[in-house]
């Protein structure tokens, strides 16, 4: 309809200056040493024990976080599909409203909640359930990640769910499908695009976080994000920081490429 390709120009300018050129800058720093000559050292540094360990742990925790988010979010999508189809705006608001309270503060609040003598333990103790000693462990980091990124899993799943035509489900029932069958053979395949984009939206920030691990991990757990952040701020080694960032990006791209095999249409979207 619109014959005005040039309308993309301002946007392309932003992509060029805000995304492409900065990526080239990071490539440049990643492949040079402090004197500016070419080197692969910053890339191969990922093999150093402390770097490899941090990357491995980050990938593992992010994977756990993504799976937990999926398990928590999918039923929410299923329930909301039937009950709240007319209130889409409200559901979205409720889910993004927490973001209006600063992210750092929310994470600090979890620290206060999870502390050995914190609010949650007092409640659990009062109920006679016993203590939940997860603060300063990887479990606390996963909990923080799940908390922060859960809305990004629920939203896309909910979005594809409400679009699923009810007639399809009724047809499946009419043809004698059981509830389980309807779930696995109708709903699940149809909601796949939402699941895929949800996984992306959760997995990527989870792999790369450094704030959550710093606050909830008691400084005992280093993820790749922490290493990169420290290279840039504390150690002032931009080259190594860039190199490690590039490696991390490659790992993310590989994960996403694997994932995108399932998403042929690219229909999932956050809203």
């Amino acid at each position, binding site marked *: *309809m*619109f014959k*005005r*390709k040039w*309308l993309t120009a*301002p*946007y*392309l300018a*932003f992509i060029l*200056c805000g995304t*492409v050129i*900065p*990526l080239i800058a*990071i490539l440049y720093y990643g492949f040079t040493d402090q004197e500016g000559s070419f080197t692969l050292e910053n890339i191969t540094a990922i093999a150093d024990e*402390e770097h490899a360990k941090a990357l491995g742990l980050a990938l593992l925790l992010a994977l756990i976080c993504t799976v937990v988010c999926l398990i928590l979010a999918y039923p*929410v999508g299923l*329930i909301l599909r039937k*009950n709240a189809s007319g*209130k889409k705006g409200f559901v979205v608001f409720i889910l993004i*409203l*927490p*973001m209006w*309270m*600063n*992210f*750092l*503060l*929310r994470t600090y*609040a*979890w*620290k*206060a*909640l999870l*502390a050995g*003598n914190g*609010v949650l333990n007092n409640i659990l103790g009062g109920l006679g359930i016993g203590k939940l000693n997860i*603060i*300063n462990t990887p479990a606390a980091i996963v909990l923080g990640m799940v*908390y922060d990124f*859960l*809305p990004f899993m629920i939203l896309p799943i909910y979005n594809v769910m409400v679009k699923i035509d009810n007639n399809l489900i009724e047809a499946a029932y009419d043809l004698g499908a059981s509830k389980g069958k309807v779930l696995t053979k109708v709903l699940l395949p149809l909601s796949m695009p939402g699941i895929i984009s949800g996984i992306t939206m959760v997995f990527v920030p989870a792999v*790369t976080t450094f*704030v959550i691990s710093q606050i909830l991990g*008691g*400084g005992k757990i*280093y993820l790749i*994000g922490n290493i*990169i*952040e*420290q290279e*840039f*701020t*504390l*150690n002032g080694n931009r080259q190594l*920081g860039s190199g490690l960032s590039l490696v991390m*990006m490659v790992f993310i791209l590989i994960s*996403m490429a694997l994932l995108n095999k399932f998403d042929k249409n690219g229909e999932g*979207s*956050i*809203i």
Partner: protein
Amino acid sequence: MKNFWKRFYLVIVLLFLYLPIITLIVLSFNNTKTMGVWKGFTLKWYQEMLSSPQILNAFCNTLFIALIAAVVSTIVGTIACVGIMALSRRQRNTILQLTNIPLLNADIVTAVSLLLAFGLFGISLSLGTVIFAHITFCLPYVILNVLPKLRQSGTSTYEAALDLGASPVYAFLHVVLPDIMPGVFSGFLLAFTMSLDDFIITYFTRGAGINTISTLVYSQVKVGIRPTIFALSTVIFVIVLVVLLLSNFLPDKIAQKREEDAKKGIELTPEQRRKKKTLQRIGYGLMAAVIAVVSIFGGRYVGAMTGNGEVIYFYNYGDYIDPDLVTAFEMQTGIKVVMDTFDTNESMYPIVEGGQVSYDVIVAGDYTVEKMIANKLLQPINYENIPNAANLEPSYMEILARTDPGNTYMIPYTWGTVGILYNKTMIPEGRITSWKDLWDPELAEYGILMQDSLRDTFMVAEMILGFDMNTSDPEELQQVVDLLIEQQPLVQAYENDAARDDLITEDAGIGMIYSGEYLYCLDENENLDYVIPEEGTNVWFDCFVIPANAKNVEGAEKFINFMLDAEAGLATFEYLTYPIPNSATMELIDEEIREDENVFPSQETLDKCDMYHYLGKEADQVLASYWKRFRGN
């Protein structure tokens, strides 16, 4: 029954999402800044919030950045979507893949890559760079929201409008835009929210002097987050909540009424419908206008408060000065203090070195000042203009002269030691005498805390091993790292600001801490006691310095002189609880505290202590590599 479980599940998920928010709201009324203890209801944080230019400034900056970023990205994004529709399939896919990059990229990579690009092109960091960065990461959200709507809406109505003689722009504004409005609106809202909630990208791309709520929170880690920020967040949250509830339930009510009207056979005339639409538009317009006015005028207001007449630019740790003192100084001299805050010496140093902003006074840690002296970033203090320097305790100045011969550049602001704080109800009084006690497996059950700070943490191991705390000898450092790794299984957490809170709430029984925190902790929990270990420890000073590129040296001298006044020292001591190296102030302090050798150690104890020194760039890198070896373990 089934429905009950479904509801129950939803409630649990919502509770999970809102639990921290409820916590923060409760904490904003808590009469202490220690998280995790309830000390009674207070409104003082709300009062403090309203009178703090720093908080208001951060609030306005946050809104301003989010508003500009969201508006620009919505306009550019929506226009781009129209253009994208005209592209061939292949071009479109390419552009969409590019759009996905910022979404797929880690925040930290986006942030760092922008930082590097700004650096390569010699663009100095400012508010502009932050806004640019925010627009960049907001754009994909707009595109991904608008494009599907545009595809859905199809071309027929647009073409019909053209056939009927509308110009393309008119047809777009009156036919296409209303159709895709929900997408544009949700894109805008998401962009606004993302910008508002961002920390990492702002942190890396901001210029000196620009704080958003996020960076302000982060800069306060040295002394603990002040609940004024909880109060501010609560206010923002409640306003947004009310607006959202109204905008969600009012339309329902209106729709209900319309339905009833329809049943009764009352149809709205086109005239009435148009009126209603206009009203709705006015509503949205008002909302946007309120945000715009608050952020722009708020910024102006703060700007006016600080922008007229004589100004000094002051660079300090977050929440590391009594705000009343700043006000008093401004009243007394008519000089406005523009304060900028940092979280650590390490993050402050490159900004001063970069010289993009010229500060007049900086508060910095001793060994960082030494590095500044070595790199010629400071100018000598003219003691003639600072008569109150006579109040400074000579014996401390002597110690400080080890770092700064002749006390040429540094005027001490606060000082203290690093020691061990422990809980007397868990560990018998007098049991703790040595740094080695932090390695005692018997004490691990109470919770042992270590600092998460290169020099301090290394220092402890160096003291035990009998090394110099300024060593950069690889063999010695390897032993230090080995010793610290050996301790790792016993340590509950490595933390800085949070250590204080954990000891107060008795989540931990023993930990290393700065002497300045001891009095604060004692106030909150009387079971705590502080010990300077027998092996000796680090004596540190945070000092006022005047950078070589300071513009208002005279104002800086007046400010330092004001801060060295006996009464000002007392106010500082009471606000920070950090010892003040000021003999005139000492006379005003309660005798009980003055005699407390934990806070003000005897000369004998001080003789066993040493100061950190700046070791040079190469040694710094050696230390950093060993630190990583330990932390990455």
